[in-house]
C-alpha cells in the first residue's frame, strides 16, 4: 500500500505540469461541459429580432427571468442599439418609444435608468 501511495505522490508533479502543458486541450474539453455557457441574465440572452438600417442597428434579445428558479412573473428584455435611433419597439406586448443618440437614450421621452453606454451605442434592459 505504501509503495502505491509513494508512486501516486511521485506522479503528482507530472500531473501538475500536464495541467499547464495541455491547458488548451483541457480548456476545449472543459468548454464542452453542459454548464459552460454564460447566463443569459448577463449576456442578455439570444437575439430574437433585429432592425438594421444605414443609420442604426437594433437587436432585441429574448426575455430572461432574473433568479435561480426563474420567477416567470419577471421578464427582462435587453435591447442593443447602435447609432442614432428614433422609433417604436414592442417588448413583451408593450410598445415603447425609443430615442437614442450618442449622448443619451430616452424611453417614452424620459432618461432610462437601466441603460448602459457601450463603445458603439447603448444597451437597455426593459422589465
Amino acid at each position: 500500500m505504501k509503495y502505491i501511495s509513494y508512486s501516486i505522490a511521485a506522479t503528482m508533479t507530472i500531473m501538475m505540469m500536464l495541467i499547464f502543458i495541455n491547458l488548451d486541450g483541457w480548456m476545449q474539453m472543459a468548454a464542452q461541459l453542459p454548464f459552460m455557457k454564460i447566463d443569459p441574465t448577463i449576456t442578455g440572452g439570444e437575439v430574437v429580432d433585429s432592425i438594421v438600417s444605414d443609420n442604426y442597428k437594433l437587436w432585441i434579445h429574448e426575455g430572461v427571468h432574473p433568479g435561480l428558479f426563474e420567477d416567470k412573473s419577471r421578464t427582462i428584455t435587453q435591447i442593443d442599439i447602435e447609432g442614432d435611433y428614433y422609433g417604436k419597439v414592442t417588448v413583451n406586448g408593450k410598445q415603447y418609444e425609443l430615442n437614442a443618440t450618442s449622448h443619451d437614450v430616452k424611453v417614452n421621452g424620459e432618461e432610462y435608468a437601466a441603460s448602459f453606454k457601450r463603445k458603439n451605442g447603448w444597451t437597455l434592459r426593459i422589465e
Partner: protein
Amino acid sequence: MKNKLYSTGNVLRSILLTLPMTLISMMMLSQGGQALGTLEDTCVYLAACAIYNIAFFLMLYKGEIDKWRAVVFATSAVLFSVSFMNNLIELRGSVTYSDADVLSCEIPFCHIVTTMVVIPAAIKQTIIFPGSIMTGFASISAMFVIIFGSSIILGRGFCSWGCFYGGWDDAFSRVAKNPIIKKVNVAYRWFSFAMLIIMALWSAATLAPEYCSWLCPFKLVTERDAIVDTETLLKNVVMVILFLGLVVVLPLITKKRIQCATFCPMGAFESLFNKISIFHVKNNESKCIKCGKCQRSCPLLAIDSKLKPLINCSKCGKCVDACPTGAMQFHIKGTPVGTKITTARLLFLYPAYTLMVTLIGGSVVNAIKIIINLF
C-alpha cells in the same frame, strides 16, 4: 540558521535535488518559447528562473520551507498585481471596469468566483459571471481546469502555493516581529465556511457574483468598479476598508492571514479538497512534546488545541519548520507516519512549487519587464 531536521546538509545534494525544479521552471517559464524573444526577454526569463531556483535550493539546503516560500510567494503576488493591472490598461485603458465591460463579458475570471458559480452551474447549467468561456487571459474554462486540477493534487495547498491574493495577506502577516494580539481563537476559521455558504446562496439567488461585486478586498490590487454613481462609490469604499482591515491591519497585529483564514470563501472551498489530496500535514504524536509552537505559528488557524492539523490547513510548512522535534510533518496518505519524512516533504514540494512557478511565474516575468521599461 539551518533546520537540522530537514537540511540536506551539503550544497551538492541540495543542487542535485533542485535540478528537477530547475528543468521544470525553465520549461514552464519559457511559455513555449514566447518568453525568449529578445535579449532583454531572455535576461528577464533567466533572472526569474534564478530567483525561483535559488529559493527552492535554500528550502532544501536550509531545511526551511515556509521562510523561502513566503519570500517568493509574496514577491510573486505583488508582481502579479503589477502585471495584471498593466494587462488591463493595455486592453481597456484602465484598471476599472464599466457596465459596458460587464455587458461585453470581458472580465477576467478569478478563482474565488468558483464558489459563487457552483450552485447555478449545477441547477441552471449556466455560469453567472461576465467573463469569456475560452478567450482572454483568464478565461473561465482555463481557470476551472487550473483550480480543480491543482486542488485535487494539493488540496488547500493552492492557497499557499498558487493564490496570487494570498501572497498579500501572507506578506503583511510577517512584517511585525511580535503580534500585538497574541492569541486568535481557531474557532474563527468557521467564518470562512459561513462565508462560503452565504456567498454561494446569495449569488445563486440573485444570479450575480455578489462577493466580487461587494466584498472582495483584492479588487484594490487587480480591477475595480469605475465610480459612476453612489452604488459604485460605496462598493469602492467597502473594498478599501476590507483590504486595509483584513489584509493589512489585522495580519500586522495578529501575524495571522486573517483574510485567508476567516473571510475567503475560496479558502473554505479549497479546504474540502484536503480530503481528496494525497498530501497532508500530520502530527506524529509519538514525537510531539506539546510545546504548542506549531499552533502559535500557524497563520491560518488550522491547528487545534490538541495540536492536530485541521481541514483548513494550506500546507504552507510554517508549523513543520517551527516544530523542534519533527513531529509535525508533511505526510503522504497511506504511508506509515514518522518514516521517510524528508521524502514525503520533497514529493509535496515539487508539485506545489511547480504550481507557483507556472501559475504566477509568467506574470512575474511580465512584471519585471514592465518595471525595467519604466526606467
